[in-house]
């Protein structure tokens, strides 16, 4: 049988086409296929990187640090001048407490300084276990976990639970550590206006309608609300009872950052949950650092074992970093003892805060930002001059005036380009239990004078 002619011709053409395809060059989309190696060498020669770091002007305020000689206690020697300390977060005055120092000395004699290892590899000391137990008992939760650095606490806790695809509702005024934790978690971040529960509810409702569109995805998307007990940037507290209502209504978990409110709010210093009288199990995770009221170093998270135990294997700052030096842990335990034995210091501290809050009202040119019982206030300019740089310079002159007259103050420092919602420049005023009434009055009158002379 002879095949028809057009068959043979077609097949011949096909065979020729196949041969042509086999021998033609492959076509890659990515490469510039025309670069010769000489051109490549030229490109390599010509490329100039930026300098590793941009040069910093010499008068940048942060290059001229205040240098403190000696311990930053109630009477502090800044740049050679003795002042009363209104700048260190030493709320309960435990920085130079003799009992705390003796506990640290005893621990130093027994354990040396460093732990030489992370918690998993012989870096767990009996003092760490004791501190965790004590903190859990003090806060009346099941378990607590300690980190060796305050910043790393919340920045490691958030990414341990919230991963890519999860949703976190966070307050605008949250501190930088929370922002870094959120960035590391790669979750969807939804900011709500500071302390505005209506705005938060709006966001939650929007999320609910999203969920109804895709219920399968909604079933596996975790949701969290991250708020602070006492906000560092604004000095006010979060409305926790409303948050709890929203939690159960929209099924969102709450992470509470209590660095400033631990050891300050509440009848026994247990923080904002005690202040509002809320059952502590309603809060999924409480994170705080021990660098403020407890005058030590490090941080802790407490909550139910179901939640906290997870961090022992997935908290990056816990697993991959050396543990807290035992002398600092012993100092924290002793500080906790003092807090438990003297519950009236919290009332005294609140009383002092209210006193100075009242005394600072009515300074011309400066407004007080913060709750009346908050031990850290901000003094912002009533009218900004228009440029942040000028505002900062004006406030620096006020601070210098006060420093020259014996009150140590500092401006609140931020990284201008990195913050999501940059607060206005302000002077930070910190009240501690050790300041006497005369000193508080002196500070208030000095600030009035300074504002008068600099701003008018």
């Amino acid at each position, binding site marked *: 049988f002879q095949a028809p002619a057009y068959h043979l011709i077609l097949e011949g053409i096909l065979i020729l086409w196949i041969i042509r395809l086999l021998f033609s060059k492959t076509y890659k989309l990515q490469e510039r296929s025309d670069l010769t190696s000489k051109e490549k060498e030229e490109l390599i020669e010509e490329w100039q*990187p930026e300098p*590793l770091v941009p040069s910093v002007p010499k008068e940048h305020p942060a290059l001229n*640090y205040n240098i*403190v000689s000696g311990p930053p206690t109630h009477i502090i020697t800044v740049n050679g001048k003795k002042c009363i300390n209104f700048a260190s977060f030493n709320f309960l005055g435990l920085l130079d407490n003799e009992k705390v120092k003796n506990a640290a000395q005893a621990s*130093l*004699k027994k354990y040396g300084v*460093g732990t030489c290892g992370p918690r998993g590899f012989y870096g767990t000391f009996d003092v760490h276990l004791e501190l965790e137990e004590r903190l859990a008992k003090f806060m009346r939760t099941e378990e607590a976990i300690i980190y060796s650095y305050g910043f790393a606490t919340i*920045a490691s806790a958030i990414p341990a639970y919230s991963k890519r695809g999860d949703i976190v509702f966070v307050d605008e005024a949250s501190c930088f550590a929370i922002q870094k934790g959120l960035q590391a978690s790669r979750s969807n971040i939804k900011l709500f206006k500071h302390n505005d529960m209506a705005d938060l509810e709006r966001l939650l409702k929007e999320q609910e309608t999203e969920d109804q569109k895709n219920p399968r995805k909604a079933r596996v998307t975790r*949701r969290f609300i991250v708020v602070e007990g006492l906000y560092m940037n604004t000095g006010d507290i979060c409305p926790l009872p409303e948050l709890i209502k929203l939690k159960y209504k929209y099924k969102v978990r709450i992470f509470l950052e209590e660095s400033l409110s631990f050891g300050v709010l509440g009848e026994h210093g247990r923080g904002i949950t005690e202040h509002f009288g809320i059952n502590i199990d309603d809060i999924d995770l409480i994170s705080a650092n021990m*660098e403020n009221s407890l005058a030590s170093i490090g941080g802790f998270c407490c909550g139910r074992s179901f939640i906290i135990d997870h961090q022992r294997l997935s908290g990056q700052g816990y697993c991959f970093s050396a543990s807290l030096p035992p002398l600092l842990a012993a100092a924290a335990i002793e500080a906790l003892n003092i807090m438990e034995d003297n519950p009236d210091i919290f009332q005294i501290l609140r009383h002092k805060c209210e006193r100075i809050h009242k005394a600072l009202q009515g300074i011309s040119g400066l407004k007080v930002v913060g709750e009346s019982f908050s031990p850290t206030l901000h003094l912002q300019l009533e009218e900004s001059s228009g440029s942040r740089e000028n505002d900062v310079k004006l406030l620096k002159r006020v601070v210098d005036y006060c420093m020259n007259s014996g009150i140590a103050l500092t401006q609140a420092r931020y990284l201008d380009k990195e913050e999501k919602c940059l607060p206005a420049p302000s002077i930070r005023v910190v009240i501690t239990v050790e300041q006497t009434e005369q000193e508080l009055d002196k500070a208030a009158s000095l600030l009035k004078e300074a504002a008068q002379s600099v701003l008018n």
Partner: protein
Amino acid sequence: MANPSAVCNGHLHHHHQKQNNLLKSGIYKKNGITKGMKKNGISNGTLYKKTFIEHFEQAPMYVAVLTFLGFGVGTVFGYLRDFMRAWGLEKRNVATEREQQKDFVPLYQDFENFYTRNLYMRIRDNWNRPICSVPGPQFDLMERVTDDYNWTFRFTGRTIKNVINMGSYNYLGFAETDVNALKTVTIELQKYGTGICSTRQEMGTLDKHVELEQLVAKFLGVEDAMVFGMGFATNSMNIPALVGKGCLILSDELNHTSLVLGARLSGATIRIFKHNNMQSLEKLLREAIIYGQPRSRRAWRKIIILVEGIYSMEGSIVRLPEIVSLKRKYKAYLYLDEAHSIGAVGATGRGVVEYFGMSPDDVDVLMGTFTKSFGAAGGYIAGKKDLVDFLRTHSHSAVYATSMCPPVAEQIIRAMKCLMGLDGTTQGLQRVRQLGKNTRYFRRRLHEMGFIIYGNDDSPVVPLLLYMPGKIGAFARRMLEKNIGVVVVGFPATPITESRARFCVSAAHTREMLDTVLNALDELGDFLHLKYSRYSKSSHPELYEETRLELED
């Protein structure tokens, strides 16, 4: 470490001619992977002033098979137990969600924790062992027992005394409680207390920090340095300050979590090169400069290479001379993380820069931690004054995180002064020498016994390969019975087939302690069949006057 079926000759050749060539060029390597690497080693021989020997021997094939089998059995049993737990046939020991929150989205996916529940839980007693003494060459462990197969532990109240410590990062032996040694620390603690309660830029810079920073700069031979309160945070808070969007980070495969976190937080593009592999790095550098940023083809703003001095899981030392020559040629910047190598290598303990005979100006950013060799806590970044000034103003840690606490700073100061000889004694130098001697002795004996050890001959981090999951638990428990505390690591910190025990040699270990450990290892190695090495030296004593003259093709 690539694929087990790669060419891996089981026998040893003695190429005397090759020996001479290599001896002249000064670099050779014993490696079961590719031959191309060795050729490169010869051509770059002039960069290395002394011999650079690293071992990454591969185990025989049957070991990999048995390892996978072991994990397979564990997984099957894991599914079985999960099934029994789900159906109530077995008690659930793990903590559960609150009743009121049962209808919330579950916090953990079941499969995420499969490995933890079923495999890690079985051998959990080998980690997080609490101690109750100083982590010196010997320590006291708290005795811990479990009644329910590692779900919960309880302390019997007894302590196991004088366990030899092969796990803590105490390279120079500065973790000590000698009263004279800690005299200044005691004084500073009394004077300053333990807290700072402020950040560097606000009221947290003490005169102690200034003193420490000047001393660190002098120690390293650089213009300026800055110290931070936590080693992990030093990386995660400063890399984002140095690089940002539009920059390229070339990071080693096996970099530490803190470097990876810092690189991710910075927002720059990250590309990974194979561990200590200079061809891979060069290829990435060339591609990056020639082709620019993906899609837009713009030139990269800057390229930064992230490497570590000693890699803590491999024990390998970075190939610094080659990296510096590459960096000069392609105008990249080098960030060297000397967490484990500062104080531990180098003739006077100045780290890998001194070890290779290079100058600190060759490295753009010198970073290190004080936790390992100095027995304290915290980290530093050192380099040119511009760099450090920039970090003082823009580092996240300077603005938002507390500064280092004064007694810890004093411990670093006294350790550094001891190392530099400024306290009037030669104790520092003696410690560094003792560490070098201990390291070389320990590694030589382990090689002789026939274990597979990874890493460079001069690195005090000694990983001993166990491979099989069952042996991880057995090894650690039996060593503890012999009163020796070791660290074992498995998946996910290491590749799944390469579980290992990691020893950290210290200058404070005496010859007797090392001998005790080595004898125990010998016994245990025979009992558990851990001596996988095919290059056991004891079988050819006359050909091995020096450890260096081994070749493999």
